[in-house]
């Protein structure tokens, strides 16, 4: 059942992005930024945590989960270390994703030649 939920949720988010992309003049860059900000907002009232419980991996794959983890880390940091924790903890949970993207793309760009 959780597979069905994750299919529905992730599909709906992507379809919504596609409708925005087709109906307006925004570029894919704008769309991803909009969805990250939506994700950061949805974590304020713990809405996204409930979605993660409902949809499992389907809620963790879209870029909204990136924003969700940013806010989650910031609030976790605040609970542990006060205002300084807001700065300390923001990247705590997402650092793996950012580092992985940078590390893999650096080494692959050394190894592979660009196509076309």
């Amino acid at each position: 059942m959780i597979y069905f939920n994750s299919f529905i949720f992730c599909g709906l988010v992507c379809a919504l992005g596609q409708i925005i992309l087709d109906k307006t003049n925004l570029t894919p860059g704008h769309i991803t930024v909009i969805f990250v900000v939506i994700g950061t907002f949805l974590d304020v009232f713990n809405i996204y945590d409930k979605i993660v419980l409902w949809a499992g991996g389907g809620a963790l794959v879209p870029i909204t989960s990136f924003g969700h983890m940013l806010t989650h880390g910031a609030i976790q940091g605040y609970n542990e270390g006060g205002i300084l924790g807001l700065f300390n903890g923001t990247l705590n949970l997402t650092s793996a994703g950012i580092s992985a993207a940078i590390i893999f793309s650096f080494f692959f760009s050394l190894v592979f030649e660009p196509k076309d």
Partner: protein
Amino acid sequence: MEDNYQKIVDKHTPKEKIFYNTFIAFITGGIMGVIGNFLIEFYESYMSVPAKEATVCMLITLIFLSCLLTSLGFFDKWVNFCKCGLIIPITGFAHATQSAALEYRKEGLVTGIGVNMLKLSGAVIIYGIIGSFVFSLIRTLVGLV
């Protein structure tokens, strides 16, 4: 006169196949979600990774795959076909980083890769951090913690 002109323009503007595009994005995005969920359960049950780290492992696997497929040249065609089905998931973030790194490779290690790697995906990081800072500050000020 102007009304007629507008009508003619509307008639000849190519109709974007919005329904078709949305359907493709829904299906491919859904498949990405199922793959993500499958990877989490795979890491949890077969590799006995704790639940929180399984999520990180899943994200790293997806980022690795999309970086590899982008540098092999397949991913650009898939993105052209699926559009938001692959841009909205974390694969789009990795794809943007990887394609910028490949494109500017010939301009040198520092001035090419170093300066331009986060050209497209930097926006996601910057606005994500700004947004999360603003919202979590509001939340702490209001006292919702």
